């Protein structure tokens, strides 16, 4: 028994080592949203295309959808844009955009030039909705369920590989491509 106790430092070393090795494979920039499982923060902001029309969080209920935070100043947003177009067209995903700290004219021009995958866009000029959502860098994509509750957040580009993950999560929430 006493002999066995002599090995405790070695065993502790192995446990710590295993934890460190695990730590190496974790992505340190991957931080969980504080908003998971919470209702989408309430807002009352103008629509991007029609500035006189206001939209609020109630427009985000009724179906499982993606909410995509984007801006024309964000290079990764441009990268993912064509994939979002494809998602909206071929997969029938409903995507709502949040135009984050941007200029209305630039954003409108962007949508004209690169195509518009969004059902509608919230024009968050000051970034107030972004702040309430805990956005720390565009692009960010949220899965919002039927009741308008945030279920998942992806930070960074949405591409085919990410979509596979998102799709599984959306299907688990009752989403199906043919429904919409």
């Amino acid at each position, binding site marked *: 028994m006493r002999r066995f106790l002599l090995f405790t430092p070695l065993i502790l070393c192995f446990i710590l080592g295993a934890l460190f090795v695990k730590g190496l494979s974790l992505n340190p920039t991957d931080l*969980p949203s*504080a908003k998971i499982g919470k209702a989408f923060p309430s807002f009352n902001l103008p629509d991007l295309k029609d500035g006189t029309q206001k939209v609020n969080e109630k427009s985000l209920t009724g179906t499982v959808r993606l909410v995509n935070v984007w801006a024309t100043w964000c290079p990764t947003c441009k990268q993912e844009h064509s994939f979002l177009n494809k998602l909206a067209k071929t997969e029938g995903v409903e995507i709502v955009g949040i135009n984050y700290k941007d200029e209305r004219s630039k954003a409108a021009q962007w949508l004209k030039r690169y195509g518009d995958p969004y059902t509608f866009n919230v024009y968050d000029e000051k970034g107030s909705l972004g*702040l309430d959502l*805990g*956005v720390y*860098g565009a692009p960010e994509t949220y899965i919002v369920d039927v009741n308008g509750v945030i279920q998942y957040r992806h930070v960074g580009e949405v591409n085919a590989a990410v979509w596979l993950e998102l799709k599984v999560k959306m299907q688990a929430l009752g989403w199906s491509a043919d429904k919409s």
Partner: protein
Amino acid sequence: MKYIVLMLMLMLFSLPSFAAIDTFKFDTDEKRELFRQLSEELRCPKCQNQNLSDSNSAIAKDLRVELYRMVVDGQNTTQIKDFMVERYGEFVLYRPSVNSLTYALWYGPFVLLIVGFIIVFSLSRNRKSAKKIVTNNAVQNASSSTQTDIHQQRLKELLDKKDD
């Protein structure tokens, strides 16, 4: 020449944390101090290993403005921290709050320290008792050797008797 050297040396003293404060005006010193303290204690969500006062990223700038607004508004440390945690999670706190998730973080080192003391204490006690055993054995050996002497003597006496 002297002045140029002096000016160059003064340039070395432009600390970044001061730079962040100078753009904001406060009506009381307490508010200025609170802002300074919180902007150093809150972590920038985007840039990982920098606090709000260090970072030049867009989100850190926004959060500094938000922090300034709240400080001027007269909100206290808890209110401001709650606001940030509600949006960005515990991650933003460089000094995490004490709750069931962070008990290991806060008290783990002390537990390890106590465990270390116990191990050192028990090891030294074992060594002491081991020494005692050794000396006890020595005493026993000594006494048993005198016994053999007695036996030998007795044997010799008996042998001598037989000669008679």
